[in-house]
């Protein structure tokens, strides 16, 4: 079913008119209510009054991750804090996380786009859904929750982890839909076998998988192993969380809800609009958000876009699976990790910036493992074994505290980490995604 036909099947001319109205209203609202954007418009000489049509969006400045970093915690909010109903955080590039805020209307919007997304995947009111994305500061769990509620599903709010319990509830409650990271889904298959369950007999018929990149090969493996339809969900907390785009049952790209999240694809070299079908950086403008609306936010995800109407009946454009990043961010167990965060941790611990490298690997059907190599230079070397062990532990604890993941720390000899002439190779990703 299509959840909201009015918007999801809207004709091109009507959509352009709607987007133009929304953009014009947004820009004039920000010019008066957002000190950040008022200044940004003035600095870049973008004339808010001259923004009448959606085509005029090119005249507006971009917003970047660094802007969010510098605005920590609430300086990019466009509504008073008292009207912010919910706050979420996600990884930042340094020690501070990225903070986003939702007014009541923003939460309703989130529910709306997630309901559309779940319907895209094939869910219908009355279905039962097992939400195994983390609930809490991470946007995954709650985003799916609001969407499922809006669509009229029966929710099992499992959150992540406790695999044996997840499988027991699946066996006893028989939910039709599963929502979790794709690697967790395959990980569950191993536990299922140990419990003597045949994954093919599971009640799950549809999966909505995301929060990390995953290939078509992985899709095939999930579908074959579990006997379910595996669909892709895309999102980022800066825009709303999960629900920015979702695959329909035809799996020919992810429908992006362009009436509220206006997409542009930017050529990386020129900063101009990419040609038709050409991959580039996805830039999103939130046309109706109130808490932390963003103009031309650079997502750092590289995709291509298709504006042809889909055979499912939806006219919303379709973005491809994420083909890469413009920065060096990696995703480990669904969590965003910036190598610069590790640098920040090391600098705080030792006051030095030793050479380091992140090694990410994933054994078959296991979860991601992160190892951080740190070169032992004189300043941090101790003759005492216990002190070196303590240093390892301290680094590990700080990484867990700042990044929210458990990494293994290995002390290595100086010069053992490859030096490069240009940018240092901070990440070695051994995973075959």
């Amino acid at each position, binding site marked *: 079913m299509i959840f909201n036909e009015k918007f999801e099947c809207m004709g091109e001319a009507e959509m352009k008119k709607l987007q133009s109205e929304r953009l014009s209203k947004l820009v004039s609202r920000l010019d008066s209510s957002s000190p950040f954007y008022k200044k940004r418009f003035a600095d870049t000489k973008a004339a808010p009054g001259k923004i009448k049509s959606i085509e005029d969006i090119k005249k507006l400045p971009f917003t970047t991750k660094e802007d969010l970093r510098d605005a920590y915690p609430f300086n990019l909010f466009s509504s008073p804090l008292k009207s912010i109903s919910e706050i979420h955080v996600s990884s930042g590039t340094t020690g501070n996380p990225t903070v986003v805020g939702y007014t009541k209307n923003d939460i309703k919007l989130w529910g709306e786009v997630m309901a559309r997304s779940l319907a895209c995947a094939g869910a219908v009111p009355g279905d039962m859904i097992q939400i195994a994305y983390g609930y809490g500061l991470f946007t995954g769990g709650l985003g799916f929750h609001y969407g499922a509620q809006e669509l009229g599903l029966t929710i099992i709010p499992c959150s992540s982890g406790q695999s044996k319990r997840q499988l027991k509830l699946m066996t006893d409650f028989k939910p039709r839909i599963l929502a979790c990271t794709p690697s967790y889904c395959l990980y569950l298959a191993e536990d299922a076998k140990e419990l003597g369950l045949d994954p093919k007999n599971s009640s799950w018929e549809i999966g909505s998988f995301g929060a990390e990149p995953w290939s078509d090969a992985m899709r095939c493996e999930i579908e074959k192993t579990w006997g379910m339809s595996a669909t892709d969900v895309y999102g980022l907390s800066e825009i709303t969380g999960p629900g920015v785009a979702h695959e329909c049952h035809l799996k020919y790209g992810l429908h992006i809800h362009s009436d509220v999240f206006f997409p542009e694809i930017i050529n990386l070299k020129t900063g101009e609009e990419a040609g038709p079908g050409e991959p580039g950086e996805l830039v999103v403008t939130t046309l109706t958000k109130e808490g932390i609306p963003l103009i031309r936010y650079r997502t750092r995800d590289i995709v291509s876009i298709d504006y042809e109407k889909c055979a499912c009946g939806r006219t919303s454009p379709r973005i491809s699976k994420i083909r890469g990043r413009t920065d060096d961010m990696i995703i480990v167990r669904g969590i965003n990790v910036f190598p610069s965060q590790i640098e920040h941790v090391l600098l705080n611990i030792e006051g030095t910036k030793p050479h380091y490298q992140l090694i990410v690997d994933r054994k078959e059907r296991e979860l991601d493992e992160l190892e951080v190599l740190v070169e*032992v*230079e*004189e300043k941090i*070397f*101790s*003759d*005492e*074994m216990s002190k*070196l*062990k303590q240093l390892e532990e301290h680094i590990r604890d700080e990484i867990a505290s700042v990044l929210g993941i458990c990494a293994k720390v*290995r*002390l*290595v*000899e*100086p*010069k*053992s980490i490859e030096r490069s002439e240009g940018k240092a190779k901070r990440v070695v990703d051994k995973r075959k995604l």
Partner: protein
Amino acid sequence: MKIKQLSVFLENRSGRLYELCELLGRNKINIKALTIAESPEFGIVRLVVDKIEKAIELLKANSFTANITDIVAVEVGDQPGGLAGILKVLNGAGVNIEYMYGFVEKSKDKALMVFRFEDPDRAIEVLQKNGFGIVGSKDIAGV
């Protein structure tokens, strides 16, 4: 009376210890005592050598991470109970030992042990008061 010991960080990779010793040997530096404190991924090699200043410069120039620690070389009676006797004295005076290991050669007719003390100066005072011989760096060269 303290002696300088070299500590070197080595990854637990095949050949690293050989490369270290080969470097020292090639540059005519003689090893008097050596021990390795190990963990699964790396080890700390502790050495007493005859030319420590030259050694540390050499190691740094060849990308080894190394530093210098003060240790005490103590003469131990070469008979059963020799070591226990020293330890009894140290224990009684509340002197804490971090680690210890043996020299390759003897000092005259006594065994020679390397001690790393939490408080080396106090340890030397206690040992000498109880008649134990401490070997200084000048005499190490001759061992």
